[in-house]
């Protein structure tokens, strides 16, 4: 049962298994364990980024394809659903059509990039994805009539998912049983399903060929695997999953804009999450996304407290001023790459 759910790819480390169980339990019970809008927003963001990072790991960690267009597909999903709901009304059919249109557009674009450039050297492929993603971002901000430009669009979600929709009159364990809770569990369940899907794909015969291609594409070709086919299909699957993550993000935020979906800052975050978690492990996406987003949201607050506590001491309060949080995150990142080059998951598995 567990084996088929996890596609026979078990954590293979007690500590890793414990960490994964803790994260999944915390996310599953987040609305009840951590009340308050900020905490539940963080939990939803972690769910969404687990999918986004897992799909990126399929590309970079398993297949060895470096793409900088992953946030573009995330954005296509978010804009597809967001603009649909904004323009045609907050109904389920609109939501599904929006998702479908986004999936088709995302896959078509991925196919185009893939066929155009997967034959060229990896560095050129990376450059092309960078160029296409930049062009897409410019388009999204320029067509402001349609997309809302820099400001993005706020929209309503289907009634079932609105905070005002009450399912029970009285709160349970202090939590309102309303549409917002339903939206969270929609995000959580979809993310779980998509992650398990990605785990299955990397453990399929197809997925094993991806690893062979990462290791030695010329040898894979000599065995009879058409490398371009496998790379292209991997790119399509990763793009489709990023589109799905984008749709979830739009549903949760009830807002779509360049800063929450398309920006290169997010692309960089995804890269850091996959490296910190451990490339080519899938579980690294869970660990990396959770740790990174927690640090992003709580490091600032922690540093604020530290700065207050150190008030009066020379220099130190400036060093730990909340504005410096990115610096410290950078330091943490460098240290983690230095000490765990194979990521946290690689490190935990290496120890057994």
């Amino acid at each position, binding site marked *: 049962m567990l084996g*088929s759910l996890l*596609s*026979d790819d078990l954590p293979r480390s007690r500590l890793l298994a414990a960490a994964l169980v803790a994260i999944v339990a915390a996310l599953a019970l987040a609305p009840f364990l951590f009340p308050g809008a900020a905490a539940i927003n963080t939990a939803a963001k972690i769910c969404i980024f687990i999918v986004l990072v897992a799909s990126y790991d399929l590309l970079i960690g398993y297949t060895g394809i470096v793409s900088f267009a992953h946030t573009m597909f995330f954005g296509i999903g978010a804009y597809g659903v967001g603009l649909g709901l904004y323009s045609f009304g907050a109904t389920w059919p609109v939501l599904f059509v929006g998702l479908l249109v986004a999936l088709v557009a995302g896959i078509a674009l991925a196919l185009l990039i893939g066929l155009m450039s997967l034959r060229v050297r990896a560095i050129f492929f990376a450059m092309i994805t960078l160029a296409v993603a930049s062009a897409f971002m410019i388009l999204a901000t320029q067509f402001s009539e349609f997309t809302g430009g820099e400001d993005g669009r706020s929209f309503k979600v289907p009634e079932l998912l609105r905070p005002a929709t009450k399912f029970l009159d009285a709160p349970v364990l202090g939590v309102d049983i309303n549409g917002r809770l339903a939206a969270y569990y929609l995000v959580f369940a979809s993310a779980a399903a998509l992650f398990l899907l990605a785990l*299955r*794909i990397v*453990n*399929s*015969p*197809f*997925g*094993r*060929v991806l*690893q*062979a291609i990462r*290791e*030695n594409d*010329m*040898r*894979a*070709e*000599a*065995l*009879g*695997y*058409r*490398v371009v*086919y*496998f790379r292209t299909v991997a790119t399509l699957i990763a793009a489709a999953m990023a589109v799905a993550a984008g749709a979830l993000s739009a549903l949760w935020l009830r807002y779509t804009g360049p800063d929450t979906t398309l920006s290169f800052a997010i692309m960089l975050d995804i890269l850091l999450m996959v490296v910190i978690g451990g490339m080519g492990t899938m579980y690294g996406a869970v660990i990396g996304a959770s740790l990174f987003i927690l640090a992003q949201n709580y490091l600032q607050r922690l540093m604020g407290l530290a700065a207050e506590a150190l008030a009066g001491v020379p220099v130190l309060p400036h060093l730990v001023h909340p504005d410096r949080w990115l610096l410290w995150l950078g330091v943490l990142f460098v240290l983690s790459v230095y000490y765990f080059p194979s990521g946290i998951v690689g490190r935990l598995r290496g120890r057994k």
Partner: protein
Amino acid sequence: MSVPVLETRDLTIRFGGHVAVDAVSCAFRAGTLTAIVGPNGAGKTTYFNLISGQLAASAGAVLLDGEDITRLGAAGRATRGIGRAFQITNLFPNLTVIENVRLAVQARADNSRHLWSRWSRHVEWIARAERALEEVNLIDQRETIAAALPHGDKRKLEVAIMMALEPHVFMFDEPTAGMSVDEVPVILDLIHKLKAHGDKTILLVEHKMDVVRSLADRIIVLHNGQLVADGEPAAVIASPIVQEAYLGQAPGRKPEAAHG
């Protein structure tokens, strides 16, 4: 006579001005082991690369069972039964020994691109891979990461990968190069067994003349990219052109000493 399994017609490749393989025409028949000899840089590996598709020919053609496959890529040729063991070990370095071989077995299966089934449940692939490892005496290293193997074991794995592909045409490029003396017999036995099947087409690049003598049904000699001799082993080795072009020394001295 019947159509040869493999044939090259005026096969040529130029690197800039340098003609590395120069209009080589040769036919290879089933049940025959052909040794390809020649000095370093003669073009033996390049000739192999043209046959198995790692390089595209500048001119000429490659035919498999009479069909022109010159335009086909390496993957297509592998699928049609051309197997290759490389001179410079060419493995999946960070995967286990068994996975290196299992991938070759999987490549032959119809469902090798399956997206939904679990690789671990295709036990027949794993079993076939284990047999290939047993054939080269590597089964004890099953779970070792390929990159961590000693040189001799890497060479064995290189051969095991090709055996697991179960091709019609076997192309060995100096399979025992750099192996210690006690490891060599495993590979030679394997090639002997392969010959004993009687229906395989085997091409073997080899510098060691005693190995060539014991295995070859036929020898062809490449020199500066050209085919300069072709025939029965004894006759070719004794011919003046080989004594001069390949051995570059007076008859009587051990030829392999020249190659270190």
